[in-house]
């Protein structure tokens, strides 16, 4: 084990960047961006030290750091990572860095405040994944709320204030219940053993009676279910995602939603196994509803970003399906779904952001035929579309396959229904690709030789009135320049990751093996 406090460095480097910016009021936007870039790059660097030093064959927590903090209440500053949190830490540091680059040109207003909020958010997110003390975990969990709400509320679009406040109130309501759960857990452990502690690992080793487990499970459940979000706790998500600035959507989809899944894996399953078993059927039903509902809602969206947002509800349904299938396949699947969703959906939000920067609208009917003048853009978009609909060889397939397999093993109906939705997701993803990249742009004269013409016309035709009469002031998509090198810089790593997870998932599965085997053993299922 290394002597360097790697995790502390990973978590707090962005915070240091934020502090520098805070105490440097005259920093020019250029310097501000560079400071943010350096802070997130250093954070990534430290997380890579963690990744390369990670011992895949050892079970338990690694890189543990512990400092006494509030000893009277058994609260300490404890950090550590295992096979479940380490990949998520890496995902967070990568996406944080990409988000800084993605904000480089779009954010021109109140730049310093933007990056302060952004870096605080990064610290909060990383802290959530590495905390080994419930109190510390809760603090990071809540700290993240404010900067995210600010990002949405100040730099968002259209209905941003509504979306920011809704996001904040929903998640706060959920996490406050978790607070009661945390204190109850602390008290239950104290009554059992006479020891006051909030150490997650210590608490996990105790056994709680079943009625306590039931209520405590629910107290934690709501916080995580809202974050994932599971149906019917998802209503904040389309608003927040749609109104957030591009980097905000990237982190919301890429990292924030993962916190819910991570919470289930870290707390609900190991702490309350009996209650989990009891409630699993209900939660699986909710997961399947989320998968189906998200896909159906995505089908009818006219807003590019809202479509991706609903597809997130659907994808994260696969993650919870895998988790509550309570077997190793499902757990592996949910972890891979989360990683893949973080990469792919994050990238899709960047894709939306790129055309939004050019068109200043996200309405699908404005776009069309982008493949002609933006071939690089269309290639990236195509890749991520295929990954999102679960084409084998790309990241989406592996996770969904394993999650569905896990669902099958629990009860084949869950697996079967989830499998059907894969068709739906192919439908809405291919349709959006067709509408944005392939068919002719509005106002473009129809090509008489094009056999696809009629279908294309049908697809662009609004329900009432002609598209041309309504969008005279809309920019012409035929004039859009292709992706800039900065935009390409944000997409390339995500594309590589998509392919990497798709072709060689073993790299990540091996990483998680110890942790997941341990978890699955709780429910009587060992190994793959």
């Amino acid at each position: 084990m290394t002597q360097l406090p790697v995790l502390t460095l990973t978590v707090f480097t962005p915070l240091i960047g934020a502090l520098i910016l805070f105490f440097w009021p005259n920093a020019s936007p250029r310097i501000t961006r560079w400071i943010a870039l350096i802070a997130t790059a250093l954070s990534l660097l430290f997380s890579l030290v963690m990744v390369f030093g990670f011992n895949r064959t050892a079970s338990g927590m690694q890189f543990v750091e512990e400092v006494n903090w509030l000893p009277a209440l058994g609260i300490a500053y404890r950090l550590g990572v295992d096979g479940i949190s380490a990949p998520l830490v890496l995902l967070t540091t990568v996406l944080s860095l990409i988000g800084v680059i993605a904000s480089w040109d779009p954010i021109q207003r109140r730049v310093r405040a933007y990056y302060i909020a952004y870096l605080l958010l990064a610290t909060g997110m990383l802290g959530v994944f590495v905390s080994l003390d419930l109190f510390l975990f809760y603090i990071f969990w809540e700290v993240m709320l404010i900067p995210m709400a600010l990002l949405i509320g100040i730099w968002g679009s259209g209905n941003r204030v509504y979306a920011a406040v809704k996001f904040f109130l929903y998640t706060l309501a959920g996490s406050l219940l978790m607070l009661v759960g945390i204190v109850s857990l602390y008290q239950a452990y104290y009554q059992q053993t006479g020891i006051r502690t909030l150490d997650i690992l210590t608490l996990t080793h105790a056994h709680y009676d079943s009625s306590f487990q039931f209520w405590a499970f629910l107290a934690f459940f709501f916080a995580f279910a809202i974050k994932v979000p599971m149906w019917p706790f998802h209503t904040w998500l389309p608003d927040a995602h749609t109104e957030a600035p591009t980097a905000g959507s990237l982190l919301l989809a890429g990292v924030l939603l993962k916190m819910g899944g991570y919470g289930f894996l870290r707390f609900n399953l190991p702490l309350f196994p009996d209650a989990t078993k009891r409630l699993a059927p209900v939660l699986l039903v909710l997961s399947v509803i989320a998968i189906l509902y998200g896909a159906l809602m995505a089908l009818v969206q006219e807003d590019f970003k809202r479509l991706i947002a609903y597809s997130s509800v659907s994808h994260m349904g696969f993650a919870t399906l895998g988790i509550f299938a309570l077997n190793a396949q499902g757990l592996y699947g949910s972890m891979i779904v989360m990683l893949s969703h973080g990469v792919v959906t994050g990238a899709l939000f960047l894709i939306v952001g790129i055309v939004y920067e050019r068109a200043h609208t996200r309405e699908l009917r404005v776009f069309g035929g982008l493949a002609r003048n933006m071939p690089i853009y269309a290639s990236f978009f195509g890749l991520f579309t295929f990954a999102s609909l679960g084409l084998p060889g790309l990241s989406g397939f592996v996770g969904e396959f394993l999650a569905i397999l896990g669902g099958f093993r629990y009860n084949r109906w869950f697996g079967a229904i989830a499998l059907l939705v894969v068709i739906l997701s192919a439908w809405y993803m291919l349709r959006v690709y067709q509408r944005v990249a392939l068919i002719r742009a509005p106002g473009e004269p129809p090509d008489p030789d094009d056999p696809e013409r009629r279908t294309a016309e049908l697809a662009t035709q609004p329900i009432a009135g002609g598209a041309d009469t309504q969008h005279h002031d809309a920019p012409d998509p035929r004039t859009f320049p292709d992706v800039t090198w900065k935009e390409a810089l944000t997409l390339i790593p995500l594309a590589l990751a998509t392919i990497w997870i798709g072709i060689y998932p073993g790299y990540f599965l091996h990483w998680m093996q110890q942790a997941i085997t341990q978890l699955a053993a709780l429910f009587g299922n060992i190994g793959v």
Partner: protein
Amino acid sequence: MPLQLTTPQWGLLVPPLVVLATIIVLLAADLFLPRTRQSILTGVAIVGLTLALLSLATIDWTAGQRTFGGMYRADPFAFFVMLIALAAGILAVLISAGYVESGFEPGGMALAEYLSLLLFSILGTMILGTAGDLLMVLLGLEMSSLAVYTLTAFARRRSTSLEAALKYFLLGAFATALLVYGMAWTYGLTGSIMLDDIAAALQRAVGNGGRVEASVLLALLLLAVGLGFKVAAVPFHMWTPDAYQGAPTPISGYMSSVPKLAGFAAMARIFVEGLAPLRQEWLTLIAILALITMVYGNVVAIAQRDIKRMLGYSSIGHTGYMLAGLAAFTRVQPGDHSVGSLLFYLLAYAFMNIGAFGAVAWLQERGYGTTLDDFAGLAGRSPLAAIAMSVFMLSLMGLPPLVGFYAKYYVIVALIEANLLWLAVAIVIMSAVSAFFYLRVVAVMWFSEPSQTWQAVRTPLLGLGLALMVLGNIALGIFSGPVLDLAQRWVQAFA
């Protein structure tokens, strides 16, 4: 019996005496200082209070020493009450000095009068903290309250200020009458005004028959109602919103903090110490009061557009949380978190709420009003002020890592340890409700555009006060361990 006169231990009286001396210096200096040099008085008050704060270190509080025949006690509880009163006092002077000096309110008070009244109120609260018998409780409480009644009427030419003062005074006097009546009953039943003796007598009575006489319950009820008025617990809260809105803003901040501290200190002394044997009787009462208080305060606060009024109602809500801390009292034992959590909450509250009112005063001195719209776009105009106000709002909401979160957390821990899960859940739900109106202020500051022009005014002391409170909100939270230990130690004093 020959009269025996023992020399009091003057050493134990140093902190209150320092404050008294400061008041005398203030009044004397006022006679000689020319009108233009009045601001020196502010310095005198701050130095005096700081000296008093430092002098707390000269006494060994853990020994539980007593003097004046046990009327005056120097135990950890007294220490903590003095600590909060003096800290809140310094903050209050910092945020109000400019407001008073600039003659912001029509017909305002002279600085010397203002400061000496403020210090009298602090002195009263300090004395209350040391009270060993009912008489001292009454003395401290009234010294604390009377000065604040006068301060509320500070703006003599503004009718709302006079109305607020009158309402506060009349209801306060009414409350005192009930309290005195309750004390008289207690004395009549137990034959003593010393808290120790009352507890012993009640213990004998409860221990013998196990049944509590109706007359004892009457005394309990009268005490609870009287003190309920002082801390603004529902249904004895009617004066609060008007008084907070009508009073000059820095006074509202002070009013929400120190007199509340006085009320809770009296409650802790009387209920936890004197009436400890009747715990079963008063705990339920306090728990129910806590619930209705927090629900009423938070729900009504949602409808307020005036920030001062909103803070008034929200302070009722916070009274509810503090009462919940008291309701978690189970027995005198080192591990008991209830009164410790209450004291910690009071300290935290001073930093949050005086800060919030300070930020309102900051805006007022720049020509703004006190409604929600006046805060629109503050972040664009003065990011530091907006950050300060956001910190106070989020801390009041209970968001980590700010001190408000820790305060609530400790109360919740105490409640769950006392098996009052329903009250803990109520706190959580009410926190979510309160998020709605606190967040509205934050949202308006950061997400809207400013509506008025700006008056450039220099208010260095107010700025310093706000900065101190922002730091306090962060540091007291993160390093709350030692402070909480300190707050909890007093229970051991009479274990």
